[in-house]
């Protein structure tokens, strides 16, 4: 991943963007944080947050024109938060003594501020805090400018005096009744001070001979407030027409001019990276769906403002706007406790790290790649794409840990090995118009369904229906093994070509997605579309089963609405009413198998399955063997669509799918029986190792499943031990303990021989290799 790509991805995640209120506030008061503190009753902290941004909080909290309230998201679920009311509560109830304002050491530079209105005073306040000597020239006898237009009731005079006293405290020199241009010449001011800020109020009497704009105000750069004359800046009411007068806007302009003056005096760029100064519209998205509408908490005494208790209640209405749309629906994104902007940074760092721990490995390998995040993201960010690309990089760097993917990749290899792979034209035919490709998991989970479907298709479709038993290569694709995936695809494609490029009929939607993406020249159909078009099955096959079922759409059909619709039409034809889960169709969830999540992060996969199966109490129908088996394994009654199509009894919804070893066996036996029954072929002689029988007691089987140990692994270990004599013996029990490392995992098996059978008592494994060990 390049830096530029990282920035693009980071930019797509808007979680860190400001809430609407703070963005609309020209000085960006952190309203969300302030309200959060008030809601907790922590007025002192809230007051600190307010004062960090607002120069004259007593005044602002009474007479601010509050553009924040106009855009408050609470309006979509009730009425806007009374933000100004909360600000005033901060001042009234924080109970803090006036704090000493921190002032930086003197800088030996002086600034003249012409005009004692809010923009001038804000600039004076900010620049004085930065250590400049500041003199304010005010032509009238009072500071505050247009503040005096407010009634005493709206803005008590002692509040003005109290706030403005801070200016004197930090050393701002105030010269009242001095008119620049009359009492002292503009030229003298410019000569005497290092910088000048002109903020002469809304009805300027003098434009000091500077260049004017179309409205007759002093022309300034809209970002920096610099005038044509070097070192002279202008802002405040002078620049806006009557009617646009805004207290908080004036404060904002004073502050931005102060930033420019500081930069000017430090001789750095005035214009560099001045983004999001002043009011703007945020990109943050916040859903108000499902939020209970609430109206403004009224003030018992509007004169006094909110009581402490009222303020806490009002602050509790604040929704603390944030996005997190993806995190809300995705168990994976939720489980790492942050959000995509942080995740993409972590993934980037993980890929670029040279020394040290790669803490992002688990993050990268846990995603199901299902793409639900992109569906719900207002900006369309797809974490699956990011994770999948990262896996490929890790594989290329030789940095992919072996443990997460090795088992499913071995499973893929088994499916494509001589033991279970099969390609044939329909018996008695030399060509195929169609090729039924059931996929490895249906063959492993329900081989009887494969046979039934094949018989049905061969009967109903003309032109020849071939059969191919294989794995499409999804485990290699998902795990970032590009080369291995290409190998699988090449083998598939070669055989498919040799068969005359028949139309593919796919029972698994992952195969569908893989071939659609990587073999675009193939004509593909989902099995469900084909059965739907054939008006199959006849309603007659319907056996007693629940009236209502909930469909779990496979995540790889997210953008295949036609497949999802076929599934629903088939169910309707069978007489079922379909309940739609809250997340279905294009917003369906992954079952925990996608992207090999289950193997990389089993705990998370369990959580994902738990979430999904709790979405409805009715029986589920899945049309992917893995989805069905995962749900059933966690105790959710789930039918495979083929169970219903072939009229299986209702109790099949509760059956646990076969274990890993049985899946292998099922695939191998399926090949064997089909070859015998349909093509009259006898497979080659049996492998010696498979000849001996293992007895796996019921209490040992789950241990082996949990530890991803296959019967075959144990057979090899026992075979090795018995042939070499390298084994341990427990003289008390007579049991044997043997170990063997076929490739990258060492398997240990505790067993005893009973006649020509071996009874397994325990099995475990590790990846570390014992360097010195007994040799045969």
């Amino acid at each position, binding site marked *: 991943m390049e830096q530029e790509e990282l920035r693009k991805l980071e930019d797509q995640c808007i979680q860190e963007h400001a809430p609407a209120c703070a963005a609309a506030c020209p000085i960006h008061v952190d309203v969300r944080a302030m309200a959060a503190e008030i809601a907790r009753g922590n007025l002192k902290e809230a007051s600190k947050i307010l004062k960090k941004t607002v120069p004259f909080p007593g005044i602002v909290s009474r007479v601010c024109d509050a553009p924040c309230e106009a855009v408050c998201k609470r309006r979509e679920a009730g009425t806007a938060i009374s933000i100004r009311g909360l600000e005033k509560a901060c001042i009234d109830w924080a109970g803090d003594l006036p704090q000493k304002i921190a002032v930086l050491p003197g800088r030996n530079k002086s600034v003249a501020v012409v005009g004692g209105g809010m923009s001038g005073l804000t600039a004076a306040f900010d620049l004085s805090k930065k250590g400049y000597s500041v003199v304010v020239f005010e032509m009238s006898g009072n500071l505050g400018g247009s503040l005096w237009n407010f009634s005493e009731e709206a803005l008590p005079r002692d509040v003005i005096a109290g706030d403005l006293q801070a200016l004197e405290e930090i050393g701002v020199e105030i010269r009242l009744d001095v008119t620049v241009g009359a009492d002292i010449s503009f030229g003298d001011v410019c000569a005497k001070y290092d910088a000048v800020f002109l903020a002469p109020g809304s009805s300027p009497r003098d434009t000091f001979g500077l260049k004017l704009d179309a409205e007759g105000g002093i022309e300034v750069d809209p970002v920096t407030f610099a005038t044509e004359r070097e070192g002279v800046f202008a802002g405040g009411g002078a620049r806006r027409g009557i009617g646009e007068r805004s207290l908080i806007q004036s404060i904002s302009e004073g502050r931005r001019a102060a930033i420019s003056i500081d930069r000017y005096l430090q001789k750095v760029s005035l214009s560099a990276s001045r983004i999001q100064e002043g009011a703007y519209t945020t990109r943050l998205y916040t859903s108000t769906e499902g939020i209970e509408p609430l109206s403004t908490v009224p003030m018992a005494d509007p004169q006094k403002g909110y009581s402490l208790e009222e303020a806490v209640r009002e602050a509790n209405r604040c929704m603390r706007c944030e996005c997190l749309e993806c995190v809300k629906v995705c168990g994976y994104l939720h489980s790492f406790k942050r959000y995509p902007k942080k995740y993409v940074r972590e993934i980037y760092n993980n890929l670029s790290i040279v020394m040290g721990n790669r803490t992002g490995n688990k993050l990268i390998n846990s995603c199901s790649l299902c793409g639900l995040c992109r569906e719900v993201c207002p900006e369309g960010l797809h974490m699956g794409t990011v994770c999948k690309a990262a896996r490929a990089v890790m594989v290329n760097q030789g940095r992919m840990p072996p443990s997460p993917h090795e088992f499913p990749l071995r499973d893929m290899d088994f499916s494509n090995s001589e033991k279970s792979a099969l390609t044939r034209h329909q018996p008695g035919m030399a060509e195929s118009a169609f090729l039924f490709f059931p996929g490895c998991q249906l063959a492993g989970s329900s081989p009887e369904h494969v046979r039934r479907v094949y018989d049905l298709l061969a009967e109903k479709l003309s032109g020849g229906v071939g059969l191919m038993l294989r794995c499409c290569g999804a485990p290699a694709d998902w795990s970032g093994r590009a080369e291995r995936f290409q190998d699988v695809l090449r083998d598939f494609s070669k055989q498919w070509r040799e068969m005359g490029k028949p139309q593919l009929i796919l029972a698994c939607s992952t195969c569908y997605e893989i071939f659609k993406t990587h073999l675009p020249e193939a004509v593909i159909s989902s099995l469900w579309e084909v059965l739907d078009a054939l008006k199959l099955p006849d309603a007659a096959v319907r056996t007693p089963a629940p009236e209502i079922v909930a469909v779990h759409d496979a995540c790889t059909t997210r953008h295949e609405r036609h497949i999802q619709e076929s599934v629903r039409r088939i169910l309707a034809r069978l007489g079922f009413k379909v309940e739609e889960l809250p997340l279905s169709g294009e917003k369906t969830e992954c079952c925990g198998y996608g992207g090999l999540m289950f193997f990389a992060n089993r705990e998370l996969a369990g959580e994902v399955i738990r979430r999904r199966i709790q979405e409805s109490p009715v029986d589920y129908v899945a049309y992917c063997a893995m989805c069905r088996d995962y749900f059933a394994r966690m105790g959710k009654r789930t039918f495979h669509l083929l169970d219903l199509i072939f009229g299986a009894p209702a109790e099949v919804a509760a059956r646990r799918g076969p274990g890993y070893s049985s899946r292998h066996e099922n695939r191998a036996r399926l090949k064997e029986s089909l070859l015998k029954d349909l093509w009259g072929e006898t497979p080659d002689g049996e492998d010696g190792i498979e000849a001996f029988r293992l007895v796996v007691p019921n209490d040992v089987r789950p241990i082996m499943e949990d530890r991803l140990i296959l019967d075959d692994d144990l057979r090899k270990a026992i075979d090795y031990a018995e042939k070499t*004599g*390298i084994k341990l013996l*427990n*003289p008390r029990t007579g049991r044997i303990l043997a170990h063997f490392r076929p490739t990258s995992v060492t398997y240990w098996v505790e067993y005893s021989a009973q006649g020509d059978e071996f009874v397994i008592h325990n099995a475990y494994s*590790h990846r*570390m290799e*014992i360097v010195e*060990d007994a040799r045969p």
Partner: protein
Amino acid sequence: MKERNKHAEPEWICSKCEVPLQKGKVNVAYMQGMFPVDLHKCPACGQVFIPEDLALGKMAQVEKLLEDK
């Protein structure tokens, strides 16, 4: 199984050499790393014993750490 693992001396003897196992240094390797570990092994033929709790506990932890290095 669990209970037995708590004992300091394993119940297993080498089946080939018919002698009890003894503690000794054994090198184990993973992800380009090699470490000496104290394990029981046959003093005659060198056959090593790795108990279940070690394989699933400490060893698995170290494997994970090395994978993320």
